[in-house]
């Protein structure tokens, strides 16, 4: 953008990267600021202990509120997901403003996990090694000793003595509306953070605006992965956390012949590319794949092609309201092939919307589902239902929105300010929280969450059971490509074509 | 009684062997018609005789199934309607077709097209406008004109294209006898300014007033041709057309 424009845009004070020429100096600045965060946090908690609530409450009345911008679709095509996410954020904001926070905080450099160091070297190992390491399934509850109480008192109402004020216009599932509202939030409402978007298209529409204006942006959605952007934090699950685990499970339990049915757009195509590339590593084979345009709602020919190919199981990357018609139609046609997926059910609760047994034998790796049987999740569900009694289902993305909101509040408290560059540094300091789903950790290098992933299986009665779980899967793929946003701020979305390993498994052609 | 103007014998329009069918009905059936320059010809015939279809064929709204049309010696059978107009053949429709939502001035502006590129004054048109009293109604919306004025306006629109042959389809339909007489006089005077005119009309008073020669159409064919007196004395015509037996 031009210099003229920069004059208008919200300036920032945290010019930590003012001297990009010298790496050493850069790192020193980095370390310094992190130390000061830790110090601030300790001071802050001490202050709370001494002065107690009255002080902070009095302060809250005087202090201006923290402006929290949210763009979630409440009408249009994606309303079914957007309303859920909108509710998730509202719940979290209510809790924060009433003095609650999710347990957790800075875990020191590295946190749990092998790669979760601040500014690690990108791994250069063989991809098979990473895949194996990334996905050790477990059912051993003792590994992650979960407390029932994870929502704890923060010691103040709001953050830094300021209430969080939600500003949430409705972008109506319309990309240009997203753009103009994003500009409105930044330039007019002068918000401190923006969380926005369901579809990747919506994210891509506003991400350049966020970068131009140096606005802290959270994208709280499961997606095709690959975003590496200094100002963007993604709290949804990504392919390495979903596709690889579900494939491992399905191949082990049903067999090596995979048929992919994918929506014919970015998410479907890229996820299918993941499946194609991962299959040989997991000693399996994709014997057929089909891409369905988003407007298609009748699946007779797809069903017959599947029956002709006779796969052991189906990999489902179909999305949207038209595509979900596949399930009742396939069921009515007597297709009894097991299915694996990274989105359906967890995102759009098809198992609640369709009568059993349309989604029998369906398996999905999810970062969250309403049915998770842990005590802490039951409490979460209770709180949610109390606030939104009419909610049809609490889906994966609503949970992501909830967690992201708490994560942001935690980072602001840690930073001691709402200044974006400083909050970004706080988010990059190795911060984690106890989410209703389990422990999640913001990976500094990639700005994605290390997630607690469960594999949900849907039976003939559409009851959900969690057959296995992976308590800690890291966002390893973009790191493999050398992404390290702490050291090298950038702004792009990587696609599997850019990974030499994936290039070997390019799609041969349509159909 | 005006004297018929002399036609100089040069053929303006020559149609031969024209046939056109609609939905199984042969509206025009192997018809031949010749018009000389400066001729004023009336076309009569009972309902369904094919008069309007013939006009449609001449103006190009319909394509003939067989036959051809020569205009000023040129074959125009395959030309589009607008091309025929540019060659000097213009039609007034049976039901008045003017731009009702626009003013008279705008109507005339549209009609005075760019294809009549010479910027010299269209004298026939200004004469016609003043004769018919339309020049005082420039700013009136055409739809608000009286019925007769609408009919006259459409004739003026046709004149604005500077035609050599004017086709008038029932120009006095719905007019009072006075208006009919005025129209008749106007048409005759127009013809005197060396304009070939072909009129379809039911009103025998009108025909009697203007006709030099009359063509009778019946079942898509030319039944007979001649002067009005000849036609009126023809018993066969009386039988088919006037319903007398």
């Amino acid at each position, binding site marked *: *953008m*031009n210099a*003229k*424009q920069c004059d*208008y*845009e919200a300036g920032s004070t945290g010019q930590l990267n003012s001297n990009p020429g010298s790496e050493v100096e850069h790192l020193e600045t980095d370390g310094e600021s992190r130390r000061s965060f830790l110090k601030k946090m300790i001071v802050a908690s001490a202050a709370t202990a001494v002065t107690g609530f009255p002080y902070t409450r009095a302060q809250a009345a005087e202090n201006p509120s923290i402006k929290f911008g949210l763009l979630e679709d409440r009408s249009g095509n994606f309303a079914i997901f957007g309303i859920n996410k909108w509710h998730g954020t509202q719940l979290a904001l209510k809790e924060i403003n009433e003095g609650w926070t999710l347990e957790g905080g800075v875990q020191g450099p590295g946190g749990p996990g092998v790669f979760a160091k601040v500014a690690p070297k990108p791994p250069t190992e063989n991809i098979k090694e990473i895949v194996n390491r990334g996905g050790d399934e477990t059912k051993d509850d003792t590994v992650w000793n979960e407390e029932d109480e994870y929502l704890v008192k923060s010691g103040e109402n709001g953050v830094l003595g300021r209430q969080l004020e939600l500003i949430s*216009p*409705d*972008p*109506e599932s319309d*990309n*240009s*509306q997203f*753009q*103009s*509202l994003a*500009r*409105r939030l*930044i*330039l*007019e409402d002068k918000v401190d953070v923006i969380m926005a978007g369901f*579809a*990747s*298209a919506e994210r*891509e*529409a506003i*991400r*350049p*605006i966020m970068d131009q204006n140096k606005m802290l942006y959270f994208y709280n959605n499961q997606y095709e992965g690959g975003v590496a952007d200094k100002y963007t934090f993604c709290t949804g699950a990504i392919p390495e956390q979903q596709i690889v685990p579900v494939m491992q499970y399905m191949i082990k339990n049903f067999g090596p012949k995979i048929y992919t049915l994918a929506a*014919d*757009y*970015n998410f479907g*195509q*890229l996820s299918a*590319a993941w499946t194609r590339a991962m299959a040989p590593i997991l000693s399996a084979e994709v014997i057929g794949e089909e891409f369905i345009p*988003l*407007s298609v709602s009748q699946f007779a020919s797809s069903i017959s092609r599947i029956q002709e190919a006779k796969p052991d199981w189906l990999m489902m990357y179909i999305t949207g309201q038209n595509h979900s018609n596949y399930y009742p139609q396939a069921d009515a046609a007597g297709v009894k092939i097991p299915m694996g997926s990274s989105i359906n059910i967890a995102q759009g609760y098809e198992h609640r919307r369709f009568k059993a047994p349309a989604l029998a034998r369906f398996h999905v790796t999810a970062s969250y589902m309403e049915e998770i049987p842990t005590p802490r999740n039951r409490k979460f569900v209770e709180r949610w239902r109390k606030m939104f009694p009419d909610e049809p289902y609490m889906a994966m993305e609503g949970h992501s929105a909830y967690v992201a909101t708490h994560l942001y509040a935690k980072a602001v408290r840690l930073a001691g300010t709402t200044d974006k560059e400083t909050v970004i540094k706080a988010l990059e300091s190795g911060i984690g929280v106890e989410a209703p789903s389990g422990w999640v950790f913001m990976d500094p290098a990639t700005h994605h969450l290390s997630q607690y992933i469960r594999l949900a299986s849907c039976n003939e009665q559409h009851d959900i059971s969690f057959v296995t779980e992976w308590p800690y899967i890291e966002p390893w793929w973009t790191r493999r490509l050398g992404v390290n946003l702490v050291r090298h701020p950038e702004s792009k*979305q990587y*696609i599997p*074509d850019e990974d030499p390993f994936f290039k070997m498994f390019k799609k041969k052609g349509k159909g | 009684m005006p004297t018929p103007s002399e036609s100089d014998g040069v053929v303006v329009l020559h149609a031969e062997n024209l046939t056109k069918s609609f939905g199984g009905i042969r509206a025009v059936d192997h018809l031949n018609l010749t018009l000389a320059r400066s001729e004023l010809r009336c076309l009569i015939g009972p309902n369904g005789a094919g008069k309007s279809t013939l006009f449609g064929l001449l*103006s190009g709204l319909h394509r003939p199934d067989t036959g051809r049309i020569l205009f000023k010696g040129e074959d125009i059978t395959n030309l*589009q*309607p*607008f091309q025929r*107009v*540019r060659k000097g053949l213009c039609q007034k*429709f049976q039901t008045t*077709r*003017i*731009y009702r939502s*626009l003013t008279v001035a*705008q109507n005339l*502006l*549209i*009609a005075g*097209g*760019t*294809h*009549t590129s010479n910027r010299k004054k269209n004298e026939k048109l200004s004469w016609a406008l003043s004769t018919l009293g339309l020049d005082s109604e420039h*700013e009136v919306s055409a739809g608000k004109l009286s019925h007769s004025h609408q009919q006259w306006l459409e004739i003026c629109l046709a004149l604005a294209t500077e035609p050599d042959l004017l086709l008038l389809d029932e120009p006095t339909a719905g007019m009072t006898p006075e208006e009919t007489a005025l129209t008749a006089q106007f048409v005759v005077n127009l013809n005197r300014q060396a304009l070939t005119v072909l009129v379809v009309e039911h009103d025998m008073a009108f025909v009697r007033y203007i006709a030099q020669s009359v063509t009778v159409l019946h079942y898509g064919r030319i039944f007979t041709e001649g002067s009005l007196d000849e036609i009126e004395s023809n018993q066969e015509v009386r039988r088919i057309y006037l319903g007398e037996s």
Partner: protein
Amino acid sequence: MEREDKRWWQVLNGPQELGRGRVFWCLFTFAALGLLAYPFVGSVFALSNFANFCLYVPMGLGLALLWGYSGVLSFGQSAFFAIAGYVYGIISGNLLDMPGGTLLAAAGAIAASAAIAAAFGYFVFYGQVSGWIIPLLLLVLSLILETFMAQTAGYQWRVGSVLLGGYNGMTNIPSLQIGSSIFGGASIGFYYLVVSAMLITYLGLRLLVNSHYGHVVTGIRDDVERTRMLGYNVNLMQIQVFVVAAALAGLSGVLYVSWGNYINPSSMGLLPATLPVIWTAVGGRSSLLAVLLSTVTLRWLADSLAVKGGEYAFLIMGILLLVTMLFFPAGIVVTLARHWLQRKPERRDLKKNRAP
């Protein structure tokens, strides 16, 4: 020379548009000056937002010309808008280092929209299909394009160095640049660019519809056969008007990508396709000024509804559209203006300016 000027002025002040005479032009000049002065008082966001409303005006005016003046309804203006956006993105992305590359891209983009409109128009208008088929066919065409563009993710879909981007859209499209000044979405330069595009389009179309050509176009709307029988190549003129409308939609598309640096296939979807129709219908399709006002107002309304009313926005738009069509078939602005003009005695200077 002076005589020429006067005639030019007469044409501009012609009867084919609402608002004539000295008072109107004084008000118009006043409003235009107000727009030019706005940056001295408005905030950056207000400017950027207002520019966003106004950049759709050429598309709306194009549809007013097409539907209101020539009688052809189109649900395809958004497709031409998006085609221009994509072509602009492709050309400018490949000519990043060339000075004036974005201008070339803008010209190419508008030309591409116009060319596609010409090809489509040739099929439709020379085929003489019935009136209701054209909007439906254009809708179908938009949906084809949307379906096609949605599946262009990945490296194999790339023109030169620019990725088409599939459903997620084409990102990082450069803003228009003239010399060293860049017309980005939140710049004063862009505001002036959009406002001048809006005013020039309005005045240009006003000249067009009041010219002899414009009168003939109106004649085609009122009576195709009559106009044909007055010696006009109606089909050709319909194509010409269609192309002009598409080019104007293309202009809006170029301004849009320059504002947002982004375009994606859902710009050709069902809903965007109908928005220009709503603007045109609500304002009054028979007046350019009415469409200009309603486009800006409805964009503003949609924006305010999104900010305040949330999920009621579409409902309110639908009710507005239905009420307009039922009770103000000529459009709200046009109906009100006519009502007002009727009560006022005709001004003297109007009479002097009547058409020859």
